[in-house]
């Protein structure tokens, strides 16, 4: 006695219902994810505004008192501001990498960076500080090596952190975002390709690997690839 072969069936209504429910749940996931990103961007926007205000206060202090007696105060406050600015930059980059971008917020961030850069320059001069100021110009649209360059800049700083006693500060700008501040800095330093690094006003075009960056930052290599920018 043998069993009959089982006729197979299709639960077509279940397939369709499962598909519809899946689409709905996916939609909810996308919506909640988008809300979450908006909330993060809003928080970062508040951070940018408050950091800008602190920066402006520090600038006013600098202009009010041109003696060197306040240098320790400037340096401490500037360190905090720069740390906070860099963290804001990492947050913005992370959100940007996963597709959550706010172009106006990024432009505002570049204003913050530019102000920080100018203040650092002034403090360097006023307080006889030898910090290395690095402008980094990149593009998210048209630059294959820019992502690697950004990481290598951080790596080179990590390598040098114990061997030199000056600080290396990065100020990065997306040159294709339409930011007035970024465009002004590009014009000043004759930046026309990406990635380009400007170290203490010396221009280095194209990708620089970690070893080259270490030499540049530690002052071992003086060969830049562009004209002096103050001429």
């Amino acid at each position, binding site marked *: 006695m043998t069993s009959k072969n089982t006729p197979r069936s299709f639960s077509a209504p*279940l397939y369709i219902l*499962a598909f519809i*429910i899946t689409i709905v749940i996916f939609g909810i996931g996308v919506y909640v*994810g988008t809300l979450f990103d908006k909330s993060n961007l809003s928080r970062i926007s508040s951070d940018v505004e408050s950091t800008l205000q602190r920066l402006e206060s520090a600038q006013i202090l600098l202009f009010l008192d041109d003696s060197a007696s306040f240098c320790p105060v400037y340096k401490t406050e500037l360190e905090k501001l720069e740390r906070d600015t860099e963290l804001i930059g990492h947050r913005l980059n992370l959100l940007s990498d996963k597709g959550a971008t706010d172009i106006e917020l990024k432009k505002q961030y570049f204003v913050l960076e530019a102000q920080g850069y100018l203040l650092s320059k002034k403090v360097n001069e006023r307080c006889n500080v030898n910090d290395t100021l690095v402008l980094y110009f990149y593009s998210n649209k048209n630059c294959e090596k820019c992502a690697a360059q950004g990481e290598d800049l951080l790596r080179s700083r990590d390598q040098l952190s114990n061997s030199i006693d000056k600080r290396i500060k990065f100020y990065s700008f997306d040159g294709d975002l339409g930011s007035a501040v970024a465009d002004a800095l590009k014009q000043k330093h004759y930046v026309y390709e990406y990635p380009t690094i400007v170290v203490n006003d010396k221009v280095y075009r194209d990708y620089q690997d970690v070893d080259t960056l270490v030499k540049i930052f530690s002052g071992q290599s003086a060969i830049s690839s562009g004209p002096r920018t103050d001429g």
Partner: protein
Amino acid sequence: MQIVRIVEYSIAFITLYFTVFIILLYIKYRNSVSEKPRIDKKFTPRLSVIIPAFNEEDTLEHCVKSLVDADYPKEELDIIIVDDGSKDKTYAIAKLLSNRYKNVRCFTKKNEGKAAALNYAITRADGEIIATLDADSFIEKDTIWRMLPYFKDKEVAAVTAAVKVNEQKNKGKAILEFIQKIEYLFTLFSRKVLVFIEAVTVTPGPFSMFRSWVFKKVGMFDTKSILEDQEIALRIQKHNYKIRSSMDAGVYTEIPRNFNELLKQRIRWHRGGFHNTLKYLSLISPRYGDFGLIIMPLTFIAIITLFGVFFVAIANIFTQPYYFRYLGLEASLLSLTPIHIVGLIILALNVLWIAWGLLQFKKEKISAWQLIIYIISYSYLLTIYWTAAIIKEIKMEKPSW
């Protein structure tokens, strides 16, 4: 990385779809899941129970005694022990048992693996129904009665028992023991639901019954497979015969008690499962209805999904190291994408599925803490099992017991 995003979203969508499908399936058949066929003590087909044994001197007697003590007419019960070339006292114990009990026979042969031992006994079995029972397992008194009624449906070719963990003296308090206990119960429930779309994919070794002609029609156990209980089930499915699953015909089996043993067992299961899936890729076809369109593809996709998850995880490690260095835990929160939200929903649905499953077994004492530990640890354990299995596959190591 666009390709990473595409892989992530695809995995999430497929996983969510199948999860929703299975839940809808349960909702549709929820009233039938706990139904049990009526026991009919007049239905007493001759039953041959085969016990393949390799180095089972500690458990063989208890196993055989559970059969001998089973509530079933002794004259219709034929117990066949096959010693598969054991190095310990297994055969000596088998001979003692065959001398002690009239309906127990024993054989010894050279070691060729479990499937070969089963096939050896099948050719010597005279039962209308042939059952396989692991030598480290034992049945309850009424297990046979609870399984046989399914054979009244002439289209049923095989019936699986409710495989549960043989709990030790500390009554399931050891972590590995209760994790496996919950896992076995949950698997039992999932298998029962799959019955409704004729999609049972394994006739578990601890105790399963087959009509004797199954072995003539579909062939004997595959001696090359290390997961012969799944392989034959897939073969039965290929021939479009029915497999039924009992949720109350209990068989208690020994489980690995330490992590090394558990890992060894799971590597065999996953590697065997992978080989069987590749062998039966032809079952992915509308010819096999829901089984061919949903369950078999799911089995295959689950393996590819695992590779996909590895790919995404590795890609993320290499593309985002600095964020985590400078932002710490905040990077994890900022990195949350809609996929993570969907993942949380999938997790919630799986917890619901587990809860429904365990509700079928109210008599089994499982505390909320045990359930939480199971839910948290299971995906990590599964990842370890699969990772180890994949490494062994890549190294092309010979699969073994």
